[in-house]
C-alpha cells in the first residue's frame, strides 16, 4: 500500500502530485470567489460571516492533520511501519499552520462579533493547547541527536496529545463557552443555508487538497534526506 511504504508512496505521489496541485488551485480560486463575492450576507452578522469560510475549514484541517498523525503513530509503534515516523515529522508543520490560521481568523472574527479578540473559554483554550502541542512536536523534531529515539518519543507524545482532540471537538457541548456550538454535525440537519454551505464545502476541499500537495512535497523531501543520511 502506498500509504505505508515509502517506495510505493514515491511512485504514486509522482502520478498524483500534479492533478492534486491543479485541483487545489482550481478549488481554492473558485472557493474564494464564491465565498467572498457570490455568497449572501448573514441575517445577523452581515458580511463578517465570510471569515467563516477560512476559519472553519482551517479548524477542521488542524484536527484532521492531528488525527492522521495519531493513526500513523499507532501504525509506527504497534505495527513497526517506519513510514509513519516520516509522515509525522513531515506533516506536523502543516497542522501547526492550519491551527495558526484558525486562531488568527477566529480572533479577527471575534472582535467585531463578540466584542473581544480572545477569551479563555474551553474551546479557545483547547485550540491554543493544540497549537502548543504542534510546536512541541516541531521543536522535538529538530532537537534530538539519535533519530531512532527521537521518532519514538515524538510518536508517543503525539499519542498522549491526541487526548486533546475530543476535548477540542466537544468543549462547546460539555461546558458553557463563548464559542457557539457546531453548526454541522452528523446527527442533525445543518443549521446553515445551502447558499452558505456550498462555499464552505468547496473551501474545505480546497484546504484538504492544498494540505495534501504540501504533504507530498514534504514527505518526499523527508524520504530523500533519510536515504542520504543527512539526519
Amino acid at each position, binding site marked *: 500500500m502506498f500509504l505505508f511504504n515509502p517506495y510505493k508512496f514515491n511512485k504514486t505521489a509522482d502520478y498524483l502530485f500534479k492533478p492534486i496541485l491543479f485541483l487545489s488551485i482550481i478549488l481554492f480560486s473558485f472557493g474564494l470567489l464564491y465565498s467572498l463575492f457570490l455568497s*449572501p*450576507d*448573514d*441575517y*445577523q*452578522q*452581515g458580511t463578517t*460571516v465570510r471569515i*467563516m469560510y477560512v476559519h472553519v475549514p482551517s479548524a477542521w484541517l488542524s484536527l484532521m492533520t492531528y488525527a492522521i498523525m495519531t493513526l500513523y503513530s*499507532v501504525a509506527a*509503534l*504497534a*505495527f*513497526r511501519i517506519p513510514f509513519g515516523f516520516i509522515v509525522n515529522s513531515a506533516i506536523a508543520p502543516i497542522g501547526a499552520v492550519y491551527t495558526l490560521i484558525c486562531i488568527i481568523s477566529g480572533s479577527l472574527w471575534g472582535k*467585531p*462579533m*463578540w*466584542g*473581544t479578540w480572545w*477569551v*479563555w*473559554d*474551553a474551546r479557545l483554550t483547547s485550540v491554543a493547547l493544540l497549537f502548543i502541542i504542534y510546536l512541541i512536536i516541531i521543536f522535538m523534531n529538530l532537537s534530538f541527536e539519535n533519530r531512532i529515539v527521537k521518532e519514538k518519543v515524538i510518536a508517543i507524545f503525539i*499519542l*498522549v496529545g*491526541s*487526548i486533546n482532540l*475530543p*476535548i477540542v471537538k466537544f468543549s462547546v457541548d*460539555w*461546558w*458553557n*463557552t*463563548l464559542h*457557539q*456550538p*457546531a*453548526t454541522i454535525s452528523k446527527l442533525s440537519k445543518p*443549521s*446553515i*443555508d445551502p*447558499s*452558505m454551505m456550498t462555499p464552505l464545502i468547496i473551501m474545505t476541499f480546497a484546504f484538504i487538497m492544498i494540505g495534501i500537495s504540501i504533504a507530498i512535497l514534504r514527505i518526499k523531501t523527508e524520504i530523500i534526506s533519510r536515504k542520504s543520511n543527512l539526519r
Partner: protein
Amino acid sequence: MSLRFQRLLLILLTLIIIFSAVLLILYNTRENVSYFYTPSEIDESDMLTKKIIRIGGFVEKNSFNKISSSSFKFRITDEKASILVAYDGILPDLFREGQGAVIEGSFSDNNIFNATNVFAKHDENYMPKSIKESLKDTGYWNKNYK
C-alpha cells in the same frame, strides 16, 4: 496473541487510562472550566461575595434601557431567572434584545450586576439576509432563530 496485537493493545489501554484520568479531572473541575454561570445558577451567596464572575444568557425582551449614550441597563435571563445588569461602555455589534450575551462583572449592594465587560454570543445558525426578509413577508419568521 501476536506481538503486534500486544503492542496495539498496550497503546490503546494506555490511551484509555490517560483519557479517563483527564476526563475525571475536567469533570470535577467543570465549574471552573465553564466560562460563565447562567442566571438560575446564581444564588444569594454569589450576590453577597461580590467577586468578579461572568453570567451568560439572553438579553430579556423589552428590558433594554439606554440611560445615556454609553450607559445601559438591561436584564439577562435564561427563562428561569433574570438579573438586572448596569453597564458603562461600548456594546458589541451583535448585542440586542433576544440575543445571547456574556457579562463580566460583580454584584453591587442592591443586587444590581455591575458589568465591566459585555460579550455578544452568537448562535450556530447561518442564513442569508434575503431569506429572513422573505420569511418575514410570508409570516413564517419564528423567533426561535433569535
